[in-house]
């Protein structure tokens, strides 16, 4: 039986918002959230009843987040010398204890893998389905992400990661 869409918003709205924040950052995260749920609502009647609704929503969120990131890159750039560093995403290694900035500074794949595994709690097989590639590659991306975070976010403890 397919539950009312409101239930999905209730159960997974918070997770999708957190994941969007990790992947696209603060303000754009709200746009990504809205785009995600609107697209999901459009497609919902066609979702098989036994599908994993959370993984499905996060797959849509993944695509919408990429759209948002692409749109951001297309923003008019100033003419002349443009640094190639994506400074809008934070300062790598700033070491100011700000987890946000440390996560934002991760390479995209690592950031996504960390978000889907550690924030949303998806299994690596599900993450592989979203990112493309193998389960091992997804596991590696998340592990590399965490390794980088340890380096750049000294305030981090070393326990508590779900397996």
């Amino acid at each position, binding site marked *: 039986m397919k539950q009312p869409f409101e239930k999905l918003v209730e159960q997974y709205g918070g997770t999708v918002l957190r994941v969007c924040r990790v992947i696209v950052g603060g303000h754009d995260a709200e746009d990504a959230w809205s785009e995600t749920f609107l697209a999901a609502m459009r497609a919902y009647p066609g979702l098989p009843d036994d599908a994993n609704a959370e993984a499905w929503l996060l797959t849509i969120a993944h695509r919408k987040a990429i759209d948002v990131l692409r749109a951001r890159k297309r923003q008019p750039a100033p003419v002349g010398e443009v640094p190639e560093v994506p400074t809008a995403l934070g300062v790598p290694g700033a070491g100011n204890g700000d987890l946000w900035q440390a996560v934002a500074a991760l390479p995209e794949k690592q950031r996504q893998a960390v978000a889907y595994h550690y924030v949303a709690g998806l299994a690596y097989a599900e993450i592989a389905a979203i990112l493309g590639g193998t389960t091992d590659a997804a596991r590696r991306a998340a592990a590399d992400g965490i390794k980088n975070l340890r380096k750049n976010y000294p305030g981090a403890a070393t326990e*508590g*990661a779900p397996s």
Partner: protein
Amino acid sequence: MNMSPGHFWSPSDTGTLSRLRDTLGLAAEAEGLLDIAYTTIDSPVGTLLLAATPKGLVRVAYDIENHERVLDTLSQRISPRVLRAPRRLDAAARELDEYFGGQRRVFDLPLDLSLSKGFRQLVQRHLPEIGYGQTRTYGQVAELVGSPRAVRAVGTACATNPLPVVVPCHRVLKADGTPGGYVGGPEAKTTLLRLEAVA
């Protein structure tokens, strides 16, 4: 590394989410995706669930019907695109408030009767002909719809009325004058009859 989801959450986010959900309701309505909008209102007969399709009010449900189950049924029978989106129910909520306040005798709302079929729907279409403060027996309603022998079927049609209060099945009583059954429970039926008798 302690990467619990709590790191990406703060108390103010509850407000952010509720704002995002409001916006989703408006966007879904604008895009024609809001197949069923619902809200709940307080009333003298308990919390009422109100649900509407783009065609009109499709369901009024009492607490004892279990609102969760009612929403599940709507999701299965009409569409799973169901959101709590109060705006579409503004007029219905206002008219019900007026009714319970003794300020309204007739509901003037577009109705979607698609949850009932055939004879049941026929009976439900005729029920509003029983005026405010009046009552009829199941037998009289059977006559009213042109099937004088279908007394039991009229009882079933009343018992399965998807729009109680608005479609006044509470005005139909047993032949001996006792209230008879009611989807909202016998107490709710008595409350409505009393409300209409004194107003």
